[in-house]
């Protein structure tokens, strides 16, 4: 069990807070929209990932409990 990042692309307005707060997982494309390299969030990053999700002004970045097995 680990946590997983999920993006709602409809809600995302390219504010870019996520890439600022979680550069280990998120970079921005040429239009400012997030690219998530790896959705899995290890325990070491969980605090940063939670902060990134909470900082998103449109609540587009979701941190979800993974129901699948890694």
């Amino acid at each position, binding site marked *: 069990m680990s946590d997983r990042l999920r993006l*709602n*692309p*409809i809600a*995302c307005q*390219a504010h870019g807070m996520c890439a600022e707060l979680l550069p280990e997982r998120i970079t921005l*494309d040429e*239009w*400012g*929209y997030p690219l998530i390299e790896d959705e899995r969030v290890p325990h070491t990053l969980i605090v940063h990932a939670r902060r990134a999700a909470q900082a998103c002004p449109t609540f587009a970045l979701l941190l979800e409990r993974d129901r699948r097995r890694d």
Partner: protein
Amino acid sequence: MSRATPALGRAAGRAVDSGLPRLLAGVDGHGGMSLREHLATHGELPGERSHRRREAPLIELLEHAGLRGRGGAGFPTAKKLRAVASARRRAIVVINAAEGEPASLKDRTLCELTPHLMLDGGQLAAQAVGADELIVCVGESSPDSLDSVAEAIAERRGLPGAPARVHLSVVPSGYLAGQESALVSHLNGGPAIPRFTPPMPFEQGVRRRPTLVSNAETLAHIALIARHGSAWFRVLGVGSQPGSALLTLSGAVADPGVYEIEHGASLASVVAAAGGASGRVRAALVGGYAGTWIDGGLLNGVALSDEHLAPHGAALGAGVVVLLSAHACPVAETVRVASWLAEQGAGQCGPCLNGLNALAATLEQLLQGAAQGNSVRRIERLASLTRGRGACGHPDGAVRFVLSAVRVFSEEFADHARHGPCDACARPAELALPVDPRAGRLRGDPVPVA
């Protein structure tokens, strides 16, 4: 207003005595089949057998039949029914005949020529998932389908086993309007554009109820499987894709239209049944406008099933094949369709909106010979930036179409990048496109509807 003609539906692929037509049995030139004609052709609909089992027998039957959805995604139908049936709230069944794909006419054909088949299927599916409401969704640009379905619904009032409520919903035109979550959004009073999922419609759909959204052809097959059984269904087709399918064949062919084929039939046999190709064929677009080009030189070996098409990177999708003649400019055709696909996006997801517009602009510059730098490399980079980043599959389909064009027409693309437009660029379009999604008219050389 055009009338359905016999040219709309025919059997092809194999001789009639080998089991075709199935869906198009009894269809003739006199317009839609009445309920009486329908029952005389296909037999009575098997009644709702009371069962004590946890699951309706139909679901197991569909599992054995190996029926997969015919709207394009090919999801196993039994699995979808099972998901809806196991939800804890009263379900709703939606027949999807919105058919936003410009090169597809099969759902319209079913609506106009044999509407009771899909309504039978809708009724059976409603019984199997415990729904008392059936909604039939038809695109506003096909008034004949709307008339035919409305008449058929009226004829079925009081039919044993019919759902308590059956209504018809007019879906606005548009490429994405028939997408599952878009249809649910429309039925909930919102715009007909895709939604962020999950929750999937089978979990939370129309009025937050578990909703089975199923393609018109899928339900028509259910009507026949319930009558004749799963073994009968599997007599035709290939192991991974049993049964027959409706195929809309258009473009450089003598007799374009909707044909019922056996999965795995050779493309050559279907083209022959349609009177042969009209002139030399440069390539075939398989699966629809979000599909894959296959080079004309390879077409003789092509068989129409997903396992046969996979080596070409293609899939049947909703059953579409367009033959592009050797007179057409494949680059100009690709640019037109790519721009149209970019316009048809819902404009909700940034990567899709930006990516498809940038792709269309790059293709246009390449066509004009005005591109700077290596535009094919730019196209490939944009494609990888766009793919998989939307709420729905639209960017993935558009990217697939563009990349396969760049691959199959690599010489023509290189030629245009160097020298600009060719003589054939000015020819009328062979890939027909709706001019205005709300007008429902076609530009270019339209696929003949009637």
